[in-house]
């Protein structure tokens, strides 16, 4: 590997950005889509890790050896122009490729006047306009006149779903429908008066909760969704507005003027895909993304090389997160024997017990380079701090976070016998862990720390009011000192971790997770309610991509049964579960016996069920079947079915309606899959698909096009004008007559079919509901599992140590299920591979003599961390510190003040309020 020089020593750079201010070179900001200027030395973006500057090729010194102002102003001596490219060699056992994607560039094909008309921007440009850290600090402004646009149009599918893919892509980019809706919502939040218009093809809200999101956008005042192909008309010379031509069935072709046009650009393969493929010896697919094996979308064509994120193909954030975790788990399968070999344990000096001492507070005030000190008079705050009660020592520091400063702090703590620390610097969010560590190094309990935020809360926001800012900094320090006096030493909890995993559900998701966890050396108990393993996958025979599902499933089940660490319980039910992260106890009833399983983690893969339709003669006429039943009949080679002259499929049966306000995600592609199979077996058959929006997202779009080219007829219907079905005789032949309005011809169409296939919704399983109750979990409005964070923690529950995957989360394809199952296994392994798990010491505690057992705290706690227990004085509330997350809600509910959140006690907080009031 070649490591490019940054010309900044990261270990010395504190990220104060003084150098950026003094750098004379202005340069288009790459992160802000070149919409604004940055400097030759800069931090790539505000949340970059490491938060350090680097110098790019626009630097005057690098070009002509002129200027080295940054070197002169850097107080830590971090600038190093002598850095050269570094060659790094590492030996590895597995590789994960995550190069992401490249946004489609509409300039290449001269699409929609981008690059020519100033007020035509891409969705990524627009994203940077919306962002508070973006080009105009969160103001949406037009490039031409820096004025707010009042009428904005979005054009969907730019570079995606192209019939003639020359320079563009044939696939669907999968994320643009929803990101455009997000942009509309954010735009309306910026300015409710803006008129927003989205020109679209199908609206593909196929993901969890996306249908509701779409409805929310659609019902905002001043928002129009128009289904139409469009072309750019002209730029109006005076106003620089842009016109768009489109057509609607009602009004025909129209031309309309907009202040700004946003192009919803698609996702291209990463620019370096080809060279990566050559270097790593892997293959790319026909679209230039990484080719993966059909049963595992994270495995490249060369063993030991895995991919995560959009290199597999267009994917959204949750998918990128769980494929990352899943790729990690598969690396673990290969490298488990070396786990922990590179890590080192920190050894801290023993803690001095200072709880009986008078508070002796040390105050360290940070200049943060010039970030604080150019506004706040640091020396006067130090002087002031020394005048406060219990403060025995105070000093200023250039950068409190620098390595030598941390050493200075811990030395002073020892020298002056300090037992409390106040650091007046930045937000605790960034550096509290560092200063806690500093205290531990000094042999003092880490909770004896309070951070006074005089940067974000003071110097940064009061740049023009130096005197008042100094006074405010003093106030903030006084509040911190007041609180520090009342701080108590706390110990974090080390909870032992039982190394065993419980997997609930023996479908493909559960099987995959169980195998991956077991392959990393952990015992697994796999519990299945049915008599056989396999779940829903037993009813699937082939995939669009050509996987032989039954052969694959048989192989996975064989591996599970043969693995010595996996114990399978079929015909089983969970009767009880108790405990917390690392230490669960679950009772499983199977074959008349009850087994008690102790486990550290649980993965819930309880699947989904198929809706049993009550509409379209289902259950009354045996020629009406669900898509799953059709697949079974095709696999059996049912003669009557395969010789049909005509077959109709109806999409969205039982969902995208009032009862189930979500899209079942997979049915469009399932119907395409089955129609292609039918056309393959009987090319003469007339196949009709009656749909609302075809949601063949990602690469599945290719198969949609293939079906259309094989004369599968697609007819769009509106939800208020659903198809009608009746069984009739036509010329002595019994047929199912399907009547539907053809939107193109604008009249009713009658199709006489021999078979009717309903794309029935997928609904949450009964097993998921039970599991949710047992493990104290929540479901979303549709009854699917609710993850800890939709985007960032997609396979975890809010309850620690419990993970989810598969269709219990939401309907999904086999490949997606496999990804998520590996992802859940990866998260579970992260827990199980440790001996102990650390829980914060800042948890609640009950003073039993004040507890009147009213239960107010218990009803307030969402974590189930508080329970009654019997004491000689009667029933009292008790806290399970392993479950308490320290939100402190219960404190405000207790009528007797018996319950108290440590580190945020009433006394600590009231002392701060008093200090703020100058008392």
């Amino acid at each position, binding site marked *: 590997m070649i490591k490019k020089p940054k010309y900044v020593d990261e270990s010395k750079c504190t990220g104060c950005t003084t150098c950026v201010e003094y750098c004379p070179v202005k340069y288009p900001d790459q992160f802000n889509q070149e919409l604004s200027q940055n400097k030759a030395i800069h931090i790539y973006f505000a949340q970059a890790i490491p938060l350090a500057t680097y110098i790019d090729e626009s630097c005057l010194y690098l070009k002509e050896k002129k200027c080295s102002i940054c070197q002169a102003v850097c107080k830590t001596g971090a600038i190093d122009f002598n850095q050269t490219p570094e060659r790094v060699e590492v030996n590895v056992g597995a590789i994960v490729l995550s190069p992401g994607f490249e946004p489609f560039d509409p300039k290449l094909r001269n699409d929609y006047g981008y690059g020519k008309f100033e007020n035509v921007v891409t969705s990524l440009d627009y994203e940077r306009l919306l*962002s*508070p*850290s973006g080009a105009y*600090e*969160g103001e949406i402004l037009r490039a031409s006149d820096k004025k707010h646009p009042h009428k904005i149009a979005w054009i969907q599918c730019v570079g995606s779903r192209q019939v003639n893919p020359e320079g563009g892509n044939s696939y669907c980019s999968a994320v643009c429908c929803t990101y455009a809706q997000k942009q509309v919502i954010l735009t309306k939040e910026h300015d409710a008066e803006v008129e927003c218009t989205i020109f679209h093809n199908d609206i593909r809200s196929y993901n969890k909760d996306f249908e509701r999101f779409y409805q929310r956008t659609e019902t905002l005042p001043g928002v129009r969704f128009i289904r139409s192909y469009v072309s750019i008309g002209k730029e109006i010379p005076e106003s620089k507005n842009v016109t768009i031509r489109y057509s609607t069935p009602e009004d025909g072709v129209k031309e309309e003027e907009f202040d700004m046009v946003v192009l919803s650009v698609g996702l291209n393969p990463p620019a370096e895909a080809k060279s990566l493929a050559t270097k790593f010896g892997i293959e790319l697919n026909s679209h230039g993304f990484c080719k993966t094996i059909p049963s595992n979308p994270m495995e490249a064509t060369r063993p030991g090389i895995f991919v995560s994120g959009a290199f597999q193909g267009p994917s959204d954030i949750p998918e990128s997160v769980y494929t990352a975790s899943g790729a990690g788990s598969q690396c673990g399968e290969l490298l488990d024997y070396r786990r922990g070999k590179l890590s080192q344990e920190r050894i801290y000096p023993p803690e001095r017990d200072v709880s009986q001492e008078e508070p002796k507070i040390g105050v360290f005030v940070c200049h943060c380079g010039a970030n604080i000190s150019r506004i706040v008079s640091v020396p006067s705050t130090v002087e002031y701090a020394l005048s406060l009660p219990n403060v025995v020592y105070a000093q200023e520091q250039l950068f409190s976070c620098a390595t030598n400063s941390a050493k200075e702090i811990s030395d002073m703590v020892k020298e002056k016998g300090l037992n409390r620390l106040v650091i007046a610097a930045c937000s605790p969010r960034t550096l509290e862990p560092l200063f806690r560590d500093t205290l531990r190094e000094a042999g003092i309990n880490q909770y004896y720390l309070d951070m006074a935020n005089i940067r974000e809360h003071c110097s940064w*926001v009061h740049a023009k009011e130096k005197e008042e800012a100094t006074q405010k900094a003093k106030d903030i320090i006084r509040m911190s000192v007041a609180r520090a006096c009342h701080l108590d030493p706390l110990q974090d909890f080390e909870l032992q971790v039982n190394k065993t995993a419980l997997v609930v559900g023996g479908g493909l998701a559960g099987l995959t997770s169980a195998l991956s966890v077991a392959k990393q050396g952990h015992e697994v108990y796999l519990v299945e309610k049915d008599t056989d393993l396999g779940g829903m996958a037993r009813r699937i025979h082939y995939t669009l991509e050509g996987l032989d599902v039954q052969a694959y499933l048989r192989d996975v089940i064989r591996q599970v049964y043969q693995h010595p660490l996996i114990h399978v319980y079929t015909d089983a039910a969970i009767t009880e579960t108790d405990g917390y992260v690392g230490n669960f106890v679950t009772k499983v009833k199977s074959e008349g016996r009850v087994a008690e399983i102790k486990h550290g983690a649980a993965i819930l893969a309880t699947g989904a069920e198929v809706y049993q339709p009550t509409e379209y003669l289902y259950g009354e006429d045996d020629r009406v079947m669900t898509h799953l039943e059709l697949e079974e009949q095709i696999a059996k080679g049912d003669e009557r079915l395969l010789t049909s002259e005509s077959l109709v499929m109806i999409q969205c049966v039982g969902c995208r309606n009032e009862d189930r306000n979500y899209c079942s995600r997979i049915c469009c592609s399932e119907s395409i899959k089955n129609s292609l199979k039918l056309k393959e077996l009987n090319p003469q058959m007339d196949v009709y698909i009656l749909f609302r929006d075809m949601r063949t997202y990602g690469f599945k779009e290719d198969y949609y096009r293939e079906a259309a080219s094989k004369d599968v007829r697609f007819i769009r219907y509106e939800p208020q004008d659903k198809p009608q079905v009746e069984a009739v005789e036509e010329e002595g032949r019994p047929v199912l007559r399907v009547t539907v309005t053809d939107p193109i011809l604008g009249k009713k169409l009658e199709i006489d079919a021999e078979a009717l296939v309903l794309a029935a919704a997928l609904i949450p399983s009964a097993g998921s509901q039970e599991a949710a109750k047992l493990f104290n979990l929540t479901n979303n409005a549709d009854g699917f599992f609710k993850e*800890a964070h939709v985007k960032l923690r997609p396979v975890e529950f*809010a309850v620690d140590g419990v993970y989810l995957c598969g269709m219990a989360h939401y309907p999904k394809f086999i490949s997606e299920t496999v990804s998520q199952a590996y992802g859940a296994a990866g998260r579970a392994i992260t827990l199980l591979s440790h001996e102990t798990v650390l829980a914060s010491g800042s948890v609640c505690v009950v003073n039993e003599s004040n507890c009147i057992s*009213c239960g*107010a705290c218990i*009803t*307030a706690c*969402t*974590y189930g961390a508080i329970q009654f227990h019997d004491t000689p004085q009667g029933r009292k509330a008790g806290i399970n510190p392993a479950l308490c*997350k*320290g*939100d*402190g*809600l219960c*404190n*405000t*509910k*207790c*009528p*007797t*003040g018996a319950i108290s*959140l440590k580190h*945020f006690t*009433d006394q600590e*907080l*009231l002392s701060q*309020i*008093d200090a*703020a*009031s100058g*008392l």
Partner: protein
Amino acid sequence: MCSGRVDLSFVLRAFSNGMDGVFIGGCRYNECNFGTHGNYHALNMVLLCQKIMEHLGLNPERLRIETMSAGDGTLFAEVMNEFGKKVKELGPLGKGEGIDEKALKSKLEAVTNLVPYIRLVERERLRVPVKSEEEILNFFTSVEFNRLFDETVGEKLAISQIISLLQEGPLTTGEIAKLIGLTPSEVSRHLNSSSRQRFVRYDEGRKCYALA
């Protein structure tokens, strides 16, 4: 710690300390970091506290809650500037409302003493179980809420204020009514029930009420 940890007693302490305004910032609704959605509890508390302030004759606009994310710097600055301006307009606490210092102190003391009771009532009768900003706002502006409030906190607050006034010395019904801003008939209703419970007694000789 969550915005739901901000206790009624914290807000009261700030006002008792002479602060002219209190601002509470929380996460955006439905974007809770904990998953507990304590910000709705904070909203509940603020609306209840505003009602109490109104009852005491204090301007409820001195207390404000806003929810925003870490990326909402501009919004935060806007809100704080606006709130700062508002509080300045309202003037010093009490003075702005025309309440004298002593009366203000006794009013705030009376509510602070009632905090445990308010918590009980809040749980039993004034909590909106639905996590929806709209529903919570609707409830706190409803006739139903006003009735419940008057029956519970309002009633206790009046009695508590009367008792703390009487601690300073005996007063007539008219004097009490003037000091706490109720009608003489309301005051006499509270005095009657308090005499029955033997909290206060009527001093026939001096024609006024005193602590029992």
